[in-house]
């Protein structure tokens, strides 16, 4: 099993503040996905990054894939209470691999 580490495990911030969540591995990903899970629901895909150095933006969310494709970050600008949830990164190791290896997740709480 490939190890994929997320940090921090918990994050509690005030509305309007910024936050960053990290996802790291010692192995190279062929691609990496970020999911958000709200209480009582299954995870929902936010973004997939494939190319080293790639940056993708989704409104106030910015996703970055490391140049070496071993790490990724999720940055939220001016967080809102609706951003509260469990953020999961999931790595794909092989080109033809349809399995995902998930990190343990970061629980984000945005206080109004």
């Amino acid at each position, binding site marked *: *099993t490939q190890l994929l580490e*997320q940090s921090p*495990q918990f994050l509690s911030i005030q509305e309007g503040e910024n936050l960053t969540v990290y996802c790291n591995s010692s192995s190279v990903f*062929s*691609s990496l*996905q970020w999911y958000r899970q709200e209480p*009582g*629901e*299954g*995870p*929902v*895909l936010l973004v*997939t990054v*494939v190319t080293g150095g790639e940056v993708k933006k989704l409104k106030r969310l910015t996703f970055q894939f490391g140049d070496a494709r071993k790490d990724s970050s999720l940055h939220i600008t001016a967080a809102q209470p609706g951003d509260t949830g469990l953020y*999961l990164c*999931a790595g*794909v190791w092989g*080109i*033809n*691999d*349809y*399995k*995902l*290896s*998930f*990190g*343990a*997740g970061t629980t984000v709480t945005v206080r109004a």
Partner: protein
Amino acid sequence: DVKVTQSSRYLVKRTGEKVFLECVQDMDHENMFWYRQDPGLGLRLIYFSYDVKMKEKGDIPEGYSVSREKKERFSLILESASTNQTSMYLCASSLLADSSYNEQFFGPGTRLTVL
């Protein structure tokens, strides 16, 4: 919209019982997956299936089996439930064999408690 449904949101069973968790997807996806989710451990893959009647073990298959008789349905079976199988169980499906951009669609989960 892709919909993945799971037969129960909450389930309480006794130690030693045989437990069936059912999952149905309505988008003709090839791949289906069963995960369990525990605090601090993320999602761990139990079994997956890439075609009808085909299955492969994931990272933690011990104590579980699966069945995929129809493309849309993937069942997880706990042959003899134990307390350490108390967990949230998530089913997912995906379309493509090449997962570079392969989104997994998840059901809402079944919270299983084994007493």
